[in-house]
């Protein structure tokens, strides 16, 4: 169990320079997710245009892992269809739970989160944004 496995360079880069990070106003807000156990907080916004998710923004407060994961997710989902995103979300969540390997066509830089699996207490930090994304898509469908 090495700290550098958890905090890989690529992960810290996403943490320092999160992709898609921007303030999300209440009007734009699509989904808000809070992990009361640790105080991580995510506000998510996007638009659906011609069946594609665009203009993805997230406002994240949390640890390095949660912010990096939201950044990796935001970069991936931009321009994709809800079906593609749901499949990717399931793949990431299964991987984080140790139920499957790194998905071959999954989000770029996802490998940077692979080390989190050795730290069970931190897995939720990495999956929260994907749960929020799925819930947001469900809400858009409804």
């Amino acid at each position, binding site marked *: 169990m090495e*700290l550098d496995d958890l905090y890989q360079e690529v992960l810290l880069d996403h943490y320092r320079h999160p992709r898609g990070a921007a303030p999300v106003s209440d009007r734009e807000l699509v989904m808000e997710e809070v992990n009361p156990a640790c105080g991580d907080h995510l506000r998510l916004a996007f638009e659906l245009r011609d069946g594609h998710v665009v203009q993805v923004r997230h406002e994240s407060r949390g640890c390095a892992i949660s912010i990096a994961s939201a950044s990796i997710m935001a970069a991936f989902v931009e321009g994709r269809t809800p079906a593609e995103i749901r499949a990717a979300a399931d793949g990431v969540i299964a991987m984080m739970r140790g139920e499957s390997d790194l998905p071959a066509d999954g989000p770029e830089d996802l490998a940077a989160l692979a080390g989190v699996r050795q730290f069970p207490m931190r897995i939720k930090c990495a999956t929260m944004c994907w749960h929020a994304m799925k819930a947001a898509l469900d809400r858009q469908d409804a």
Partner: protein
Amino acid sequence: MSEPVCQCGDVPFRVGRTWNPERIRGDFPVLNQTVRGRPLVYLDNAATSQKPSAVIQAVCAYYGTCNANVHRAFHYLAAEATRRYEEVRRAATTFLGAASPREIVFTRGTTEAINLVAAGWARRHLRPGEAIVVTEMEHHSNLVPWQLAAAATGARLRFVPVTSRGELDLEALDRHLADGAARVVAVTHASNVLGTVNPVAEIARRAHAAGAVCVVDGAQSAPHLPVSVQEIGCDFYACSGHKMYGPTGVGILYGRSALLEETDPLLGGGEMIERVELEYSTWAEIPHRFEAGTPNISAVIGLGTALDYLESLGRPAIAECEGRLTRYALDLLRATPGLRVFGDAPERVGVISFEVEGVHPHDLAQFLDTEGIATRAGHLCCQPLMRRLGVPAVSRASLALYNLPEEMNRLVDAIGRAREYFRRGA
């Protein structure tokens, strides 16, 4: 006996004839290990303290020599177990400065003790429109039971705010008491986030003047300060054995006997009754009324040894030595670049919460763990206080009587390295 000194930084000082940090550390077997290749630095004492060998041995000795149920049988072992169990009640009476062992109830811990007061006393006495005063710095276990009591009775909650120094706003307390609607004032003696020691004697006085009872959460004070419930003048006081060097699964509720007499039991069953008919029962005397079923006998006996241990070191000496170490730690932490300590109350215990610029508390705790340093991160069961502080989570180092200045040095050095570490990629 050699001259005992406790080293804090460069200044040697003397607190009592028997204070000897090395010997004290030798009493705690768990401290004598390396974690991740480094000597363990245990700074999560506010969550639970470590146990001296004497306590561990007392638990074993109970099972090894006199295991039996208490208060039931006439045989030798039962008599011996009962004698030891009740001896601890007498020791706890002295430890907390209560008037009589009748005022000492063994519970599972602080949480159960406060729930007993909120459900057993407050629900019986509160009426719609009356008020329960709590504070913004309470642990969830001194807040949620009052929310439940309020919901059950129609009473309203009122909150005493926390000032920017991390102290209670006593003028706000007076405003909450002014209309005479308050029946309960529930307050923590020492904050498990800010370390602030609240003026509970003064608060109890004002509560009484307004016709309210005063309930004190002593989870973070009993292990560190001399406590006398009669000097405080509170009506109830709760603490946990496992935070004061005793086993888990046992705590103490002190209640003034007149108030315990008018408290309903939470649990019915064996031991708590006097006469049982098919349709109704009469209850045993206090405090047995509140100890239904077989109690955690081994833990109570272990707690007794923990109380002896604290008394043998001397509680004023403990408070003084921990106080010096706390000041040493605070000076170091406050001088650390990018670090902000929450709270600045002059009266405090060694519970220190802080944030480090650029490093989330969970990431910091993870980093410190790799250097064998155990700290805590999160909301620390104080979500309302986190909102007041404007942060989702904090880092916390909490001290105990076996901690050393060198360990504080290791903490701040490691924090410096953590800042560097998480700057990668910046």
